[in-house]
């Protein structure tokens, strides 16, 4: 029962995706091409995000903690932290 609901929902989502991107009116080979492209692009975006976002977040955190965090008394303490 629940599996069917989930399946229906997924199918509905797929239908909406088709309608919005107009792949609904594409011919089958165009559809597969379009889906391949979207999936590839999405996968690349996710992978890039996975690889680079943590680094950027860490750098950003460091940067902001330097600005807003407690001011170090002596300049040498910055290097001491590492």
């Amino acid at each position, binding site marked *: 029962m629940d599996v069917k609901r989930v399946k229906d929902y997924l199918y509905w989502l797929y*239908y*909406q995706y*088709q*309608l*919005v*991107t*107009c*792949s*609904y*009116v*594409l*011919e089958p080979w*165009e559809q597969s091409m*379009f889906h391949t492209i979207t999936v590839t692009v999405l996968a690349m975006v996710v992978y890039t995000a996975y690889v680079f976002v943590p680094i950027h977040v860490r750098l950003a955190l460091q940067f902001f903690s330097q600005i807003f965090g407690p001011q170090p008394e002596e300049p040498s303490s910055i290097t001491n932290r590492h």
Partner: protein
Amino acid sequence: ILCDECGCFCIRRHTHGCGLSQRVSKDRSSKPVNKISAACINHIVHNGGLYKRPFNEAFEETPMLVAVLTYVGYGVLTLFGYLRDFMRQWKIEKCQNATEREEQKDFVPLYQDFENFYNRNLYMRIRDSWNRPICSVPGAKVDMMERVSHDYNWTFTYTGRVIKDIINMGSYNYLGFAQKTGACQEAAAKVLSQYGAGVCSTRQEMGNLDKHEELEKLVARFLGVESAMAYGMGFATNSMNIPALVGKGCLILSDELNHASLVLGARLSGATIRIFKHNNMQSLEKLLKDAIVHGQPRTRRPWKKILILVEGIYSMEGSIVRLPEVIALKKKYKSYLYLDEAHSIGALGPSGRGVVDYFGLNPEDVDVMMGTFTKSFGAAGGYIGGKKELIDYLRTYSHSAAYATSMSPPVVEQIITSVKCIMGEDGTTIGRARVQQLAENTRYFRRRLKEMGFIIYGNEDSPVVPLMLYMPAKIGAFGREMLKRNIGVVVVGFPATPIIESRARFCLSAAHTKEMLDTALKEINEVGDLLQLKYSRRRLVPLLDRPFDETTYEETED
């Protein structure tokens, strides 16, 4: 001024569905006196004092997200269009569309413009929702021939099956006179055996029959004008008579959404054409003022004539012309008014006499009353009504009076019987009942669609109901899904509408029963959920593009 009652923006005056106009005070603390709060979100009325009845017309703004997604869809389709064009050019796939012949190859390309690209690569994909062949009378229900395409809509083959009893929401059959039985059909058949199918001659030569004169007298009486003239084709009535009325040195002020026939007529006339914003009286008044003040360009001579071209009901927007204001402006600036009642005649007004009747105005105030018999009367042809001098002039000078063959007598008889029926001269109240039924159906259908959350354009009394679809894939999907559920609808896209404002257009008819409308509404609701069409956030276009100065309509006596 933000109206504190319903939250909409309005410029000066405001009626709240009660016919009484009231000033919304600039001081927001003083509440309007008569308060009718229910369902008055969408009422924007300017110069409410000129109207005898509430004028509720709304055009909801396109939600931003929807607009963006629509462009995304068009972007995808355009990219694939280029890909396919590329493949056709390099003979990777078979080219099915029209191309230049071998010996034309080095000349100017014929099929490169945007419209051809659109037809080839976008329209072709959803073409099955258009031009569907029918095989019965297009009344409230219609039979359709089933067809399939094995090459993605380039060609169709008939399966030989007939899809029976589709609820017809697409015909301009406002009063339900498209019938194959009944008084009109009997009368037309009798005239056919008496007069034959037609006379192959023009009215000015040997084609003038007593039936034609009877029709013209009847139409003049129906419209409440001095004289009228009938033509065999509505489109030609516009495009051939406007050139007879105005010419070089004259100015035409035309609504931006006027029908192609009016546009063609205006262009053929050779007069200067200026376009005002759709149903926007500030824009019209500005153009009129400029025309009077500046005269013709360069020479600065006054314009010979100024003709305002408007339609009664705009068939793509479902809006009704602001006729009281147009007439007031016309009188103030002493110009002429040409009113095309193609969709409104028969369909509006307590006695079915069009917009003039709807607003309770005097038909004499409209200089040229044009209309067609194609819609409400279930026939063919067009008419022009007005002063006797005008009609006599047109009889001699209009191209379609001089060169067109006269109307076919059975068609004339169909018009005569249906007009008499509407006027109640056949001794029954059927006509009156149909006009009322149509008005009821219209209100009911529009109210229900609005409640469901669709974006509906136009006036609440207009029997043309555009439902916004926006995205190109949804045009095709809506047409197909509705046909699957046995409802015939008309979907409209570019070039008939702006590219993102694709829509489905329902035309109500007096022949629709409540059960049919309920069935149709149930299915529309279902498809609306399936396709996510319920875009409405019940917010109004603030109309901020209108200038915030007041239009004044003081009568100028001559």
